[in-house]
Structure formats: structure tokens, C-alpha cells
């Protein structure tokens, strides 16, 4: 767990830089940074369970619960406050994870991965068949207010306020997960990945630990979902709970590596950049580019992009 002591200062500096450069960034860049951070949060959630050796192929479920939770509260319950939407979105994801966790904690490996996929497809089916939620088209939500303050410049969705909120929440979540991974419960995850028998014979419950990690992972991924919908203002099943979204989250997690809480954000940023440019300049090669990247990472950088950062640090 080397280099853990430098993570928090590095994150703080990054947060300050992101906030400081906002006035200089063009609209599309602000949007892209915001989306990358929101997506990075979703991947950060995945990192929590991946550190315990568990991969979910259906984490779009919790991304979607965050998105739909917040958007439904805004559109159907008349919730206007962004903070309340965040709380509702995260709580929806965490609550469902708490219930499903009793089942999930019994499974490992491919069964765990696909069981998550199964539940995400169930939610997808529900959403697609729900006319009041706009079926496959989804629905739009109004621009939120912030503790009673409503941004006057409504021409752009992405006010500095929302941008700053996303930056701060991404930082806060990274900090919380970082502390968590350094705690005993965090280390138990490493233990579960390496040897469950020993964890039980040390007197800790593997199932309980997995259940707890699963709920934390869902809440953080849900937060990513809420922030994404706040940025975009529109929610569809395909962009949230569909298996391609879940696959994208796993893709970015593997691309990033699970060595640090900063990795998911770095990976997301890169993924978003490449996607934007590739879709613009080489739309037909986009999928091939993704495949080649994944291949290269698995073969040459099994620790993900983060291992490059670690290597650079060691040389420095």
C-alpha cells in the first residue's frame, strides 16, 4: 500500500487546480471534466468491491438507481434542491444494495458478476416498459436549485456551482474511500481476495464484510449516477442501467487499475477524452480502439494505468 501518504495532498492539489481553471475552460471542457468525474465516481464504487476480488457486470444498476432516483424526485415529487436529489439518489442505490446484498454476499467470481447483471437487466426491463418514465426515451428533469439558490444564468446547465459541487463531491468520495481502504475493514477486503478461510479463522465474517462493501460501492456508484443526470438533465435506461453501461464501468476500472482512489478519475478522464475525439474523427474505429486499448492494458499493464503513475513515482 505504498504511497498512501501522498494521496490526500495530491487529491487536494487536483481539486484546487480543477476549481481554479474553471473560468478558462470552454463549455465543452467543463462538461467533459464534470462527466468524467461523475463517471469516475461510478468506477470508484466498483473499485471498492474489486479490491475484495469481486467484479460486478451489472453495476449500471446502481448508477441507474442514482440517476432515476434523483430525476424522479425532481420531476415527479417536485424536489428542486440538488443536495436533496443527491441524498435520494444515493439512498435508493444503497437501499437496493442492502437488500440484494444478502444474496450477493453468498456468491463469488462469475456468479457474483452475472447475478448483478441479472438484476440490472430486470431494472432495465422495468424502465423500458414504464410509459410514465418515458420508456426507452427516458425523461428530462428541471434545473435544480442549491440550498434555495437558483442559478440565474439558466442558458447553460453547467453552472460553476454544479461544476464545483461535482469536483468537491468527487474529492470527498475519494478521501472517504481512501481512508476506508486503509482501515481494518478495507484491509479485510484484501484478505477476502487472497484467502477467505484465513479471514474467517481470524474471527471476521466474510459475508458481512462483502455485504458492507457492496452497499458502500452502490452508494458511491449511485452518486456518480446522480451527478451525471444533474449534468445532462435527461435520463434514459440505455445510458444508465443497460449492460453496455455496466461494461463501460468495468472497462474503465480495468483500464484505470485499482491501486489508488485517484485511478478511476484518471481513467475516466482519459476514456472520455478518447471517446470524444474518436467519435468525432474516427467513428468507425472507435470500438476497435477500445478493444486494442483493453488488450494492451491487460497484456502489458495488468495493474492498469495507475501502475504507470506508480512506476514514475518510484523513479522520481
Amino acid at each position, binding site marked *: 500500500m505504498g504511497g498512501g501518504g501522498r494521496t490526500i495532498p495530491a487529491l487536494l492539489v487536483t481539486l484546487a487546480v480543477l476549481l481554479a481553471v474553471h473560468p478558462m475552460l470552454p463549455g465543452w471542457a467543463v462538461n467533459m471534466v464534470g462527466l468524467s468525474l461523475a463517471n469516475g465516481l461510478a468506477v470508484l464504487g466498483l473499485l471498492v468491491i474489486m479490491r475484495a476480488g469481486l467484479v460486478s457486470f451489472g453495476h449500471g444498476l446502481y448508477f441507474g438507481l442514482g440517476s432515476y432516483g434523483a430525476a424522479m424526485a425532481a420531476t415527479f415529487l417536485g424536489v428542486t434542491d440538488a443536495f436533496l436529489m443527491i441524498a435520494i439518489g444515493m439512498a435508493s442505490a444503497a437501499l437496493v444494495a442492502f437488500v440484494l446484498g444478502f444474496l450477493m454476499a453468498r456468491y463469488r467470481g462469475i456468479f457474483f458478476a452475472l447475478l448483478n447483471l441479472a438484476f440490472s437487466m430486470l431494472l432495465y426491463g422495468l424502465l423500458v416498459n414504464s410509459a410514465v418514465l418515458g420508456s426507452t426515451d427516458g425523461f428530462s428533469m428541471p434545473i435544480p436549485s442549491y440550498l434555495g439558490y437558483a442559478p440565474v444564468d439558466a442558458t447553460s446547465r453547467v453552472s460553476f456551482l454544479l461544476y464545483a459541487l461535482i469536483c468537491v463531491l468527487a474529492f470527498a468520495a475519494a478521501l472517504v474511500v481512501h481512508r476506508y481502504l486503509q*482501515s*481494518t*475493514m478495507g*484491509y*479485510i477486503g484484501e484478505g477476502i*481476495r*487472497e*484467502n477467505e478461510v484465513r479471514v474467517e479463522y481470524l474471527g471476521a465474517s466474510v459475508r458481512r464484510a462483502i455485504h458492507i462493501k457492496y452497499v458502500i460501492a452502490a452508494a458511491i456508484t449511485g452518486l456518480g449516477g446522480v451527478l451525471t443526470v444533474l449534468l445532462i438533465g435527461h435520463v434514459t435506461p440505455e445510458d444508465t442501467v443497460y449492460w453496455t453501461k455496466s461494461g463501460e464501468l468495468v472497462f474503465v476500472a480495468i483500464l484505470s487499475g485499482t491501486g489508488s482512489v485517484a485511478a478511476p478519475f484518471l481513467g475516466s478522464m482519459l476514456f472520455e477524452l478518447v471517446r470524444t475525439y474518436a467519435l468525432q474523427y474516427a467513428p468507425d474505429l472507435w470500438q476497435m480502439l477500445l478493444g486494442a486499448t483493453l488488450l494492451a492494458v491487460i497484456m502489458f499493464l495488468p495493474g492498469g494505468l495507475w501502475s504507470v503513475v506508480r512506476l514514475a513515482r518510484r523513479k522520481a
Partner: protein
Amino acid sequence: MSTVLETRGLNKRFGAVIAAADIAIAIGPQEVVGIIGANGAGKTTFINMVTGYLKPDSGAILYRDREITALGPRAVTRLGIHRSFQIPQIFPELSVFDNLLVALGIAAETGITFWRPLRTPALTERAEEILERYRIDEYRDQAVGVLPQGARKLLDIAMAMVGAPTVLLLDEPTSGISADEKMAMMDTIMAVLAAAEVTVLFVEHDMEVVARYARRVAAFADGAIIADGDPDTVLGDSEVRTTVVGPELHRRG
């Protein structure tokens, strides 16, 4: 004499194989019991039943006169009965130091933390002490997966001892260790266990090791205890010599 660990009429079958046949044994505080027997005699099954990994078909297991037959590994561990394994059960990708830290963190009086770092000065200091006590400090920062077998075995036992058990069951602590290293390793282990005033049961194939460290020996054959008493008597018993000691000598040669 009060008993710490007692079994009454333990039976266990795996299909046609009788792994435990009416096993009754009572062990007092701080006894050091050597368990001997040919392969398949039911030694590991006995340890697995006592530590909650296997449920006996019938019979009872008592810890300080309290029945624990139905408890699982975690509950048995929490009560104070810990074990080591024939194949060390450790975290291969973590360093020796981190292996110990995880064990210390789970056993800590503060409970399992979510926010406070595991790597506190107090736990770090205790981990360093353990490394020294078990003479594995030279491997401190190495990943456990690449260690020599002896160091892995010692770490496995050191982790089982974190959390200060009352009873420790060692499943073949010297298996896979060369003959000339065995005694030095057992010296290290037994010195720590004696200082910790632990009741010890250890499974062992090497009769020299048994004779040197056990204060009492229980000989297993076909799932039953065929002799139980002081080492000289049991190791000299004619039935034990033919079913256990003889084959072991043959096995070593």
C-alpha cells in the same frame, strides 16, 4: 482437573469412510498434546470438527464445559480456539507485515474500524514484536507467496496466535520442512506457546518431534483413539508401534 477442551463420542463418516469413531478426549489447561496417526486416521477431521469447519454426525464438543458443537469457525475462533493449517492459510500477495496487521486489526479490542487507519503505531509495534518472536523479521516486507515453506508455516501460526487464544490446534506444523530445520522451528514455536500459556494440540508425523515436545500423546487409527497417555507409554504401545510408528518410519525412509 478441570478441562479446557473435551469431546464426547464424536462420530463422522464420509460415505463408507469412518473419519471419526466415538472420539472422547478431555484436555486440561496448558497441556501439550501430540496427535499421531497414519494418513487417513482422522487427525485433520478431528481438528476440523473442533474448530467448527466440519459438523460431527453425532457427539459433543465442549469448551470450558460449554457445548460448542454447532458453532462455525468464526464463533469458535471468537471463543478462543484458534488453529494453524497443514497448508498455510495466509494472504499470498500481501507482505508478511501486512498479513500480521490484518490479523491484529481483526483481533483489536477497538473492533473492526472503517475510518481509523489499521496501521496505527500500537499495532505496528505489536507486529514488529511478533516478527521478532517468530524469527521471521528478515521477511518483513516480502510478499508471503514467495517465502520458504518454513517462514510461511511460522507466519500461519503467528497469525493464529494473534488474538491470544486459549487453545491452539496445529495441523502438521513441520510438514514440508527439512529434517534438520524441524527442531529449530519447533523450538521457536513451543517457546512462544509456552510463554503464552496456551493449551496445544499438534498433529505430527515425526516421532522424534512428538517425543521431544508432547507431554501427552493421542494415537489415532481408523478414526478412533487407540492410545492416549504420556509419550513413553503411547509410543511404546505395541498396537501404536504397528499401526502408527512403524508405517511412519517406513514413510520417512
